[in-house]
């Protein structure tokens, strides 16, 4: 479904990703774990077209994404939950969700998706008219996930869903991620919380200072000595 080959990404003179290759198969849930500054967000932003790679390719469903703008990638069904939520704070909850479905032309589908998001996160339904900027961090995280779901994504990219959330919210979020994957959405999660990320994932990659240093099934990674000592503590 998603294949990344020899990806090099730089910010100005500084190279951040050094020739990374990675694959996500249809209906898989894959986690990329790694420490601060490893380049996890950069990887996801490159897949989304926010950051342009210096070299290498990103292929999705057999199509080369490299030359496409972000909005065209969204139209292909790639949903994105950004790091730090980044909801539209001056728009209402419902308008945020409508924005998530911007690429969806069918009005019926839009309505259906909104009620589905409200079903998954009843809290959002109760606050549909509230300005997103006045919601709590956890509520904003739900909204960021809900917004990405409005697209009916075939591939969902999730950056650091656990950041700044209390443990019970983290569990809820990962449970939702697992359920979405069971429904058939292919998911790539990028996480510092390796423990949680590897519990739900099928496979995982370890990214350190711009290089993939290890890849295996999630189960094997969890029992791997190096991963245990560095990430599972």
């Amino acid at each position, binding site marked *: 479904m998603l294949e990344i080959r020899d990806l090099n990404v730089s910010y100005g003179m500084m190279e951040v990703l050094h020739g990374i290759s990675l694959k996500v198969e249809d209906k898989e849930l894959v986690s990329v774990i790694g420490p601060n500054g490893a380049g996890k967000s950069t990887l996801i932003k490159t897949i989304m077209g926010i950051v342009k790679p210096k070299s290498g390719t990103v292929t999705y469903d057999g199509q080369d994404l490299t030359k496409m*703008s972000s909005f065209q990638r969204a139209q292909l069904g790639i949903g994105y939950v950004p790091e730090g939520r980044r909801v539209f704070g001056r728009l209402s909850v419902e308008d945020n969700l409508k924005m998530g479905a911007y690429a969806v032309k069918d009005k019926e589908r839009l309505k259906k998706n909104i009620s589905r998001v409200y079903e998954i996160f009843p809290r959002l339904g109760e606050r549909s008219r509230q300005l997103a900027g006045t919601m709590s961090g956890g509520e904003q995280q739900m909204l960021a996930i809900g917004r990405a779901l409005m697209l009916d994504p075939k591939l969902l990219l999730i950056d650091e869903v656990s950041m700044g959330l209390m443990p019970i919210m983290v569990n809820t979020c990962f449970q939702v991620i697992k359920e979405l994957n069971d429904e058939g959405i292919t998911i790539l999660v990028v996480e510092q919380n390796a423990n949680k990320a590897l519990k739900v994932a099928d496979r995982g990659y370890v990214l350190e200072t711009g290089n993939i240093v290890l890849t295996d099934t999630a189960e094997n990674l969890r029992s791997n000595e190096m991963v245990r000592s560095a990430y599972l503590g």
Partner: protein
Amino acid sequence: MFLQQLINALTIGSLYALTAMGATLIYGILGILDIANAGAYLVGAYVGWYIFHATGSIVLAFIGSMALVGLGGVVLQRTVYSPILAKPRTLSIIPLVAAVGLFTMSSDAVRLICGAGTKAYNLKFPVMVYKFTVFGKKLTIQPAWIMIFVLTAVLLFILWFILNRTKLGLAWRATAEDAEIAGVCGVNTSYAMALSYILGYGFAAAAGIMTGILYNSITPALGEVPSYKMLAIIVLGGLGNPLGTVIAGLLIGIAEVFLSVYFNLPIPKDAIAFVVLIIMLLIKPSGLLGRKNKV
């Protein structure tokens, strides 16, 4: 007397709001101070003048000038502003300098092409002045004022409608807040930017024509006062806030008319906008409807 002054003030103020609206829309979405809006105001007044004198139709003059100047704005956005902003780590002074350059160029181009002299619209209304008696006071209203008031209200209503009641407007507001995320939601953000330029430059052109009709004269210097007064208005309104711009425009109109009528001010009328701005910024630094900047 008071009512008469209030009517004058609101007429001038609504013209100010319309003139500054383009700069607000562009700041809202691109984060740049586009002084060249004052060039759109000047060029719009001249294009309108030529169309009016070629066709005899003021309606055609408005439509034609707004469309041409609006499209010109999109061309500038595509060829000047967007390429500058696409460069990594652009200093915010660079697009501002470009805008000042474009504005100066537009004034000189108008002077070269159309001549340095004054041109008169000589628009004939069926009635040149209406006289009323309200509460025993005599009141005169020029049809040009009514035209300005009604047309501005209609244009601002159209703007409000697009921004708040259409999908395109939702995309505009989202792009203004976070263009990157609007993009990954599926918005072609360069359309949202083009919308700002079409509407913004189009509104400035309409304001230019109305000013030309109101004072019955246009010169190549027409854009000079708006080029700086516009800044006071958009900052006063809370940068990038369309509703704030309307309120600020009316407020400056009121301040100018009343202060110069009732007080013998030692400063020129065109400086009043800045006095109001300074007082306002001391009270509320983010402007009338501005938000505190998030860090």
